[in-house]
């Protein structure tokens, strides 16, 4: 039985205080901003307005991702613990939520700081946005209250709501995720609208349709209504603004349902799982490295494995969601899409490829290291060199720049016969990159499969046939993906973007689904040939977990710069021009330097929060020799 200590009470009051502060700020934003008619921008001391907003927004987003991502898998792990009656799962889920609690108040605090900075530095922008999104801001605050109280009930009611109340506790966990997801969806409307203030005709409200029609007729008086409507289909891109005055023509829902809203929602939802998992894994790695006892090491090895597993579950579908987002950006504005992948941000995507390459190589390395502590996993070791070679070659192709004109000398270009290498230049094209991404994903999935099979012997009498089918599915899948990739060189970009690449994605997903189903049935009654020796993981592998967490975080920072930078000199793309001194997209190196500074601040804050948690637990750890850790040390995954 747990009692609410005075420290806990203080923490609750602190959180409620921050939430109320946020509510007050959101309530006064429109009025406050309207009164600042003479000040379009105000400088932030020392570091400038843009940097201040950048730091606060990115930190808020990182902490927000963590507190939204962790409950998603915590509730699933709790459910597994409830159904399997294995208490260690329940305890691990509770430990995840404790980490979440520590980060919650920091998220609220950073949100408050961000609003302060925006109100002070960008009153006109905020006034414009709140004029359009006012109702959603109130809704956001209501959701935040729901999230806060549900999280506290969920966390502090954990021990009390065991046994027959467990179902209700799980319901709270699900509710917490509903609040959290809704919060993210609402806040995503504001920033996605800034990037893509347009939607498709079929999604427009009647009011917006009429407003757009009138505006179009006033711009083209020679046309009639029928002539205008004749040219329009449900997928026609419709700007939500009067092109000349910038006046908003639609309803709140039109602005909410803008081009990039749902792709960003899904991308972030999956990304939060991957990010949350990686941070939890890094926490476990840290605890593993500083652990004094075998039991502790066993516990945190197990936790790190689960964190990494969750991160990989998020990482594998993430490129698909990213692809959808990219496609929507192209559909919204072709120039913006081209700018993103082929011009201003093309080198950013090379760095992204380096980072994702590190993530995949690191995740695979961790799995292979993990197989070292499973008896009977040796038989898979012979495949490792081939898999390493495949991943490295694929990542190399992924990192190939589109042209070398920016990094090669005139003599080098003459020797090459142009700014593109005559053969390797082909790898710089999107069709090649899409192909290798799918192959890397399938290779990582294969590592998973080997890990899952390690130490087990299938008893199904059709196991040989099953293995042949699985191998054939993998082989055929890869062949189809490569063939589609080769065809992609010869077709128009429209066909590639809208037909071929989605097919590649579907083939990769189909392979994973089919193989998983066959494998589950094959190993349903498998015998165990060796146990997992938890705690015998190498120290190197723990450093890899930390590397993955930092890379995930840096990647989020980098892509945040890309998403925001795509607007270039606009607060709201094509509608509200940025007339401040910062009305340009900063250079890549400057942006990455800023991301680096944010990373240092983020990890310093996370480290401090984790350290606070550790501090409180020290006495308890001395007093309670963990039975649970012993159980893990003997158990399986």
């Amino acid at each position, binding site marked *: 039985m747990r009692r609410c200590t005075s420290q806990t009470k203080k923490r609750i009051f602190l959180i409620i205080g921050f939430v109320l502060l946020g509510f007050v700020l959101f309530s006064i934003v429109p009025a406050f901003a309207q009164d600042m008619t003479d000040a379009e921008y105000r400088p932030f001391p020392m570091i400038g307005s843009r940097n201040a907003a950048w730091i606060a927004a990115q930190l808020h987003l990182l902490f927000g991702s963590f507190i939204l991502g962790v409950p998603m898998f915590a509730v699933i792990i709790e459910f597994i613990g409830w159904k399997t009656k294995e208490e260690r799962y329940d305890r691990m889920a509770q430990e995840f939520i404790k980490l979440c609690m520590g980060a919650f108040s920091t998220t609220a605090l950073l949100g408050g700081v961000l609003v302060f900075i925006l109100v002070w530095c960008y009153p006109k922008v905020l006034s414009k946005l709140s004029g359009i999104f006012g109702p959603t801001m109130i809704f956001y605050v209501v959701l935040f209250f729901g999230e806060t109280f549900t999280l506290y009930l969920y966390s502090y009611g954990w021990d009390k709501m065991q046994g027959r109340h467990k179902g209700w506790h799980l319901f709270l966990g699900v509710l917490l995720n509903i609040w959290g997801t809704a919060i993210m969806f609402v806040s995503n409307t504001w920033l996605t609208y800034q990037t893509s203030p347009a939607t498709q005709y079929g999604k427009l409200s009647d009011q917006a349709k009429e407003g757009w029609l009138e505006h179009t007729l006033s711009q083209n*008086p020679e046309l009639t209504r029928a002539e205008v409507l004749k040219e329009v289909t449900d997928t026609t891109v419709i700007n939500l603004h009067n092109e000349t005055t910038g006046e908003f023509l639609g309803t709140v829902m039109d602005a909410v349902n803008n081009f990039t809203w749902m792709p960003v929602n899904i991308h972030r939802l999956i990304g939060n799982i991957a990010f949350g998992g990686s941070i939890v894994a890094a926490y476990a790695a840290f605890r593993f490295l500083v652990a004094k006892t075998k039991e502790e090491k066993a516990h945190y090895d197990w936790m790190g494995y689960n964190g990494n597993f969750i991160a990989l579950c998020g990482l594998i579908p993430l490129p698909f969601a990213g692809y959808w987002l990219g496609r929507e950006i192209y559909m919204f504005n072709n*120039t913006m899409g081209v700018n993103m992948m082929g011009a201003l941000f093309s080198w950013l995507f090379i760095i992204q490829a380096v980072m994702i390459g590190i993530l995949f190589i690191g995740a695979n390395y961790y799995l292979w290291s993990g197989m070292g502590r499973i008896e009977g996993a040796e038989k898979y070791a012979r495949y490792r060199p081939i898999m390493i070679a495949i991943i490295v070659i694929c990542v190399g192709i992924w990192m190939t720049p589109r042209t070398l004109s920016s990094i090669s000398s005139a003599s080098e270009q003459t020797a090459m016969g142009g700014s593109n290498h005559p053969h390797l230049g082909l790898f710089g094209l999107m069709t090649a990159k899409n192909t290798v991404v799918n192959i890397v994903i399938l290779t990582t999935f294969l590592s998973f499969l080997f890990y899952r099979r390690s130490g087990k012997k299938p008893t199904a009498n059709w196991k040989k046939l099953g293995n042949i089918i699985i191998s054939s599915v993998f082989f055929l899948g890869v062949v189809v993906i490569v063939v589609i990739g080769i065809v992609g060189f010869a077709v128009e970009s429209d066909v590639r973007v809208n037909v071929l690449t989605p097919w590649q994605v579907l083939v990769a997903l189909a392979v994973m689904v089919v193989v998983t189903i066959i494998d589950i049935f094959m190993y349903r009654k498998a015998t165990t040939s060796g146990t997992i020796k938890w705690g015998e993981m190498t120290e190197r592998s723990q450093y890899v977990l*930390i590397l993955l967490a930092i890379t995930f975080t840096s990647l989020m920072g*980098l892509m945040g710069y890309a998403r925001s930078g795509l607007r270039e000199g606009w607060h709201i793309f094509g509608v509200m021009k940025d007339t401040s001194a910062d009305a340009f997209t900063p250079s890549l*190196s400057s942006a990455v*330097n800023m991301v680096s500074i944010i990373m240092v601040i983020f990890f310093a804050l996370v480290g401090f929060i984790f350290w606070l948690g550790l501090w409180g637990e020290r006495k308890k750890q001395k007093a309670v020799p963990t039975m649970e850790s012993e159980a893990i040390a003997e158990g399986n995954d």
Partner: protein
Amino acid sequence: MEETQSVKNTLLKIAGLLLLLVSFIAFLAKAPAFPIGSENLLPWSVWFLIAVLLNMFVWGIVVKLMTYALGVVWFFALIAAWVPDTSTNTGTVTELDWSDPDAVAEIGLAIFNGKGQCSACHTLDTSAPKGRCPDLSDIGNNAANREPGKDAKTYLIESLYEPSKYLVPGYGKIMPEVWKNPIALTKLEIEAVIAFLQSQGGEIDPTPFDEPIDRKEIGTAAEALPPLLTGDPEEGKRVFIDAACISCHEIQGLENPKAGEGNEDFEVVTAPELTEIAAFNELRYLEESIILPDAEIVSGYGSVTVIAQGVTYQGTLVSQDTEKIVVRTKAEDGTETEHTILLSDLDEEPIEDLTDLKGRGYLTLTITPIDADAPVSGEIVEESDTTVTLKVGDETQTVSKIDVKKQATLIDFDGVKTVGEHVSGTLDDFEIVIIVDGNEETFDTFDIDTDNSVLASASGKRLEVKSPMPNNFPDLLSFREMADLLAYLSTLTGATAEEETNEASSDTQEEVTE
């Protein structure tokens, strides 16, 4: 001995940590390599690597992990520092120095690769794989041969302003109009890009050109438009009739085909005759009169709405002097009446916004400064953004427009009016506080008819004269129609009408003779 070793270790640890932090910050700040005397020693990235190695050896696990984490972050920054840098910060082009065409082309190149985003689709390398748009490595040379009769510069100008006009075979209509949002290149920037394109295998031609577009379409007119003298007068005459200008404006010799039919879209009023309009006015005035009808109103044709002693008069302002105005009103049966109204009889209206009072037609002002008990009332003499000078009796008095006591006139849904000095809240808030008869009273805005209630900063007498002409002609007429209309109006010097009248009378004579 051991103690000395321990001190050495501690110093080494501190030095390692300091070097780690300093070199990390210096690297991010792009500081020059660490100098000793006048010679550079090592780049900061190398110092950072040394610090990482040192700290990994001398420190315990916690600092070791911190160092490792910082090293990973630094690694990504290092990759970003290696790859080519691109930014849209190409600066603002305010003028081009045509005495040095190569320098102009350099600016054009920066725009080509930056703000203009041209390099996203166009290559400058014949050996490059086929891009989305044509390769431009020899465009300065072959632009002259693309279209018969078009020189290179004309071809480039037309291609940039209207990209779909000339399509190179094998390429689609994907190029955006770079002068429009979101790329929104200015004329100077386009000139620089054209100079750069001409430098690719050709000669740069510095001859200035007029933009073949209307920048008002994007709401950001960067420069004054050239006079619209390129229209067709005959087409303009058709526009004058079709756009119903003829319903109000008379031109001798031009008949209104719909005379007497009235117009559903706007009220037909008596407007100035235009037979000789171009004889006494510049084209720019005609253009302004169509785009901004209120900018200058011909005496005797302005439309006014005034309230005097509770009676509203809406009609044409016939005449005005320092004491009175004459307003001609028209009854529903068409009967016209002229009313002489003393300016002193005009009713005061509440004023919410104190900006540009004179421009909005206010003659007098009654205002209560924040530190005064009684209001100041007088004729408006002059005003600035923050103050207004009033003629009070024989003296002038300057008062602030900002620090004023506001007067609230609140009307509830039963029509009950409450007037008092405003304390806090607005009509958009949940409640509003005012002082009535020395007592502070709070009103719930849900109980107030906010459409009819007023929160006024002052009150004053107003005489706002407007043109009765609709102000949406810029929206109704296309660029071409506007040019044609102006071309037609510019022919109206009186001579045309005389000729037409003469022709008409001679025709009549001939008919009679026959």
